[in-house]
């Protein structure tokens, strides 16, 4: 690996080493959630950071993944692995169908269209058929081939292993032809088309791949939280994804994990200022975009001149 991934390796060491140093910490739960949402943002960075397609509907994809896993295990008694696989497949199929017409749009229009998709999903999961406002509860713990992930420690390592594997996969994509096509589409769709890049296919591939990670995150969320309800999947989630992405830095795939860690750690350290959480997050967003548009990782890289 090149030295330009120093920050990533440090992150891996710190995150995977943390429970060894502090095995009973309350922070483990916090970091599990940070990892789950971090997984969504990794896929989101591929879509937005590499390919330049903005989606405000990833809350919907996350919801489909979570509800699919929940329904498969609680209504139909499926074991975990098939439920997760089914959830990811369903979400990818929906992403494909939604992506075909929507990805012909650009910029604000694409953002609003995907936001519309998110609203549709939210409305559907609010219906009585899916448990209404109470959602689905009593989701069994995750169990893979007999091994139960019923302790925080086990779940922590499961989630973060999946996260880091996803990061490595996305980085690998970035170094190959598909990644180059995505980045070209990001900068100049029309010139990319003239170079032989199938622009629609590239965008759909990025969208479906990022949907698969969102769905996987959704399944992990469902099995960890054991109760899922529509309030966890509204537009605010998509806003938080954007914040995590830009906090860490769009386009480098692992920066968003730092964004996720900060965003989840933040409310815990606020204490009395909890009611100001949203306002402070909004302020952080504005300051980052004005002073550090390539995020903390981008800023760090420039500081150390790693690039």
């Amino acid at each position, binding site marked *: 690996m090149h030295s330009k991934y120093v920050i990533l390796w440090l992150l891996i060491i710190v995150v995977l080493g943390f429970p060894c140093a502090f095995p009973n910490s309350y922070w483990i739960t916090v970091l599990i959630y940070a990892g789950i949402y971090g997984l969504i943002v990794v896929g989101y960075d591929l879509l937005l950071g590499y390919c330049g397609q903005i989606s405000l509907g990833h809350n919907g994809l996350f919801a489909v993944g979570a509800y699919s896993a929940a329904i498969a295990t609680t209504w139909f008694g499926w074991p975990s692995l098939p439920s997760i696989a089914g959830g990811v497949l369903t979400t990818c199929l929906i992403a494909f169908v939604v992506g075909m017409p929507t990805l012909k749009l650009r910029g604000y229009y694409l953002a609003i269209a995907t936001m519309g998709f998110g609203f549709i999903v939210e409305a559907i999961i609010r219906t009585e058929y899916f448990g209404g406002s109470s959602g689905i509860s009593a989701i069994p713990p995750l169990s893979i081939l007999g091994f139960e992930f019923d302790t925080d420690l086990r779940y922590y390592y499961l989630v973060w292993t999946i996260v880091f594997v996803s990061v490595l*996969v996305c980085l690998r994509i970035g170094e190959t*032809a598909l990644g180059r096509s995505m980045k070209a589409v990001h*900068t100049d769709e029309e010139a990319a088309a*003239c*170079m032989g890049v199938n622009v629609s296919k590239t965008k759909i591939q990025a969208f479906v791949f990022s949907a698969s990670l969102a769905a996987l995150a959704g399944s992990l969320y469902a099995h960890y939280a054991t109760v899922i309800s529509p309030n966890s999947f509204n537009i605010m989630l998509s806003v938080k994804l954007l914040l995590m992405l830009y906090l860490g830095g769009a386009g480098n795939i692992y920066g968003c994990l730092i964004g996720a860690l900060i965003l989840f750690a933040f409310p815990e350290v606020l204490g009395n200022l909890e009611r100001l959480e949203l306002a402070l997050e909004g302020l952080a967003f504005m300051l980052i975009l004005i002073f550090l548009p390539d995020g903390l990782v981008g800023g760090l890289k420039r500081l150390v001149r790693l690039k």
Partner: protein
Amino acid sequence: MTDYLLRARAISKYFGGLKALSNVDFNVEKGSIFSIIGPNGAGKTTLFNLISGFDRNYEGEIIFNNEEISHCQPHMISMKGLARTFQNVRLFKNLTALENVKLGCHGWISPKYGRAIFGLNASRREERIMESFAKSMLAYVGLEGKENSEVESLALGEQKLLEIGRALASKPKLLLLDEPGAGLNDREMDDLQTIIFKTKEKNITQIIVEHNMKLIMSISNQIMVLNFGTKIAEGDPKSIVSNEKVIDVYLGRNKEFA
């Protein structure tokens, strides 16, 4: 029977009420250099946009390598062996010089994405092939050593050469160059001329839109003159520069073309 690589028939294009191109007809012989000249706004770049599939809304037929490509998608046309550069350089600023050129290889190598992710040997081999070919293309256009340069750090002349390298990386049969000489100094113009001749030796047909008459005169086999979207003259360089209509409309009377 002349072997024409590109045949354009009755090409017409309207932007609302404005007639950008009107009934343009021409044939480009395989292996030749065909130049298109004319005043600004004559429709030269529009014609390139139609041929390359950039703009698919027009009347008429375009036949490339005996296959009709009218109204085809640009990436399909590119995969059939047609490459182009742009009047305002359109490089990918978020990729390095080498990555820009590697992108040109997609047309003929058809990388397998699934294999790429899992780093299997076949995909690594593909990447190595693209890498070495792209490096040779950069050397071909005289940009050896600039592989990892950011696009924005290159001078305009170098960017134009990079764009040509990127177009050549797709191993085209036909290369469209849109004002490759614009903004170049004399030495850069010489380098460009050398590249155009080298490319001709590789039997790659070229269509060039250009204002620099010195370059046009030295490289062209055939010249077509457009004015207000219509073809007003076509012929070899000598006959074009002595054509009264062309002199009136474009060349002017006080010029000498060697």
